[in-house]
């Protein structure tokens, strides 16, 4: 953990808010996907980025990873590690959506489970999906850089700064 010399007292509270926002989105996104594994596999396949051999595994692992990372962020457990995983996943999603956009693919992003609206409408939402993911990515990177926050399990589990 790095020094927090110029850390204002309000920052740990602000980072608590960041944790709750990012963690909350992950938990909701993961929980909505949990009920239909076949749909998750189809969502991953739709991006046409990964070889078919790994598509089912990624489809099954993503919701699990999302829920665990989200839950850990909500609890403030291993914030630096889990925020790193969060940032990496969000970066991957941004790349996935941007490349689908660039290739003219119309995919319901599958971000929150299922796939809803028709092909023609999905592409119109790409900018918003990307904007949301970039916002969450920035919050995650902030937590990687300065992981200490208010009301976190880390405060109990990890040794405090001298």
């Amino acid at each position: 953990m790095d020094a927090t010399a110029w850390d204002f007292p309000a920052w740990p509270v602000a980072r608590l808010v960041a944790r709750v926002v990012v963690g909350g989105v992950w938990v909701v996104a993961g929980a909505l996907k949990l009920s239909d594994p076949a749909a998750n596999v189809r969502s991953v396949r739709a991006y046409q980025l990964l070889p078919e051999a790994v598509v089912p595994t990624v489809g099954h692992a993503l919701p699990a990873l999302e829920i665990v990372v989200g839950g850990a962020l909500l609890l403030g457990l291993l914030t630096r590690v889990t925020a790193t995983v969060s940032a990496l996943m969000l970066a991957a999603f941004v790349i996935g959506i941007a490349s689908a956009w660039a290739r003219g693919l119309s995919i319901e992003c599958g971000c929150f489970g299922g796939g809803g609206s028709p092909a023609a409408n999905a592409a119109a939402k790409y900018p918003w999906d990307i904007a949301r993911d970039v916002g969450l990515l920035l919050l995650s990177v902030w937590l990687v850089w300065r992981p200490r926050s208010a009301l976190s399990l880390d405060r109990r589990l990890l040794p405090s700064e001298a």
Partner: protein
Amino acid sequence: MAKKKSTATRRAESQAASARAAAIRKEQERKERRRQTLVVTAVGVVVLAIIVLVVTRLSSSKDTTGATGAAPKGVVAGYAVPSGPSSAPVKVTVYEDFICPYCGQFEAASRTAFQKDIDAGKVQFQYHVLNFLDGNSTTRYSTRSANALAVVLNSAGPTAAKRFHDLLFENQPQERTAGLTDSQLVDFAVQAGAKKSAVQSGIGDLTFEPWVKKVTDKASKDGVTGTPTVSIGGKTLKYSTTEELVTKVEQAIAKGRS
């Protein structure tokens, strides 16, 4: 150098010594904190990783992909409900979900024109009916209606199945509602030409649900990412409006080849 050190020198030396000791102590504490952080992090990462693995395994055991299910009698191209003769020069593959509103629009906009071409033997439509929008109704209407279509095809043949398909789109329920009930599905099946006794149990028991899942999975592997998707001769038609899609299909049928 037997000379006695001055009081000032001694004080300075002892201060330096205690500063060194403090620095060493601090360094040790820092190392100890680092060790503790590493241990807690390592244990935590292992625990979290195990949870991820367990949930992933649970999820893959619930995956229905590759479910084995017999296809209904009368299917063409492995997964499709046919409309029109198999000898027709143009084959149009349509991927739909009975609750998808744009599929309803596509059907409404194209029904009359396409039916003439079908009756004239110019084209065979091959309907792949999916259940991927199950979340858009409160009763898994996509699965129930697609299963009902398979039941009707199996027991009453393609003509009745096409009529049933058309009836369901003409009476399409709104998204996020319960959709048609099973007994309404049975009524439409009878209206389409099926025997009530032959379809009632199959519609209620979702006899062809595993097959419907197979159709949906195949569509995903064919690169279908939304509905309606229409492909002719293996090429997916690109469109931004329903009219554009209908026009492209009409042009392809008029050309008379796939």
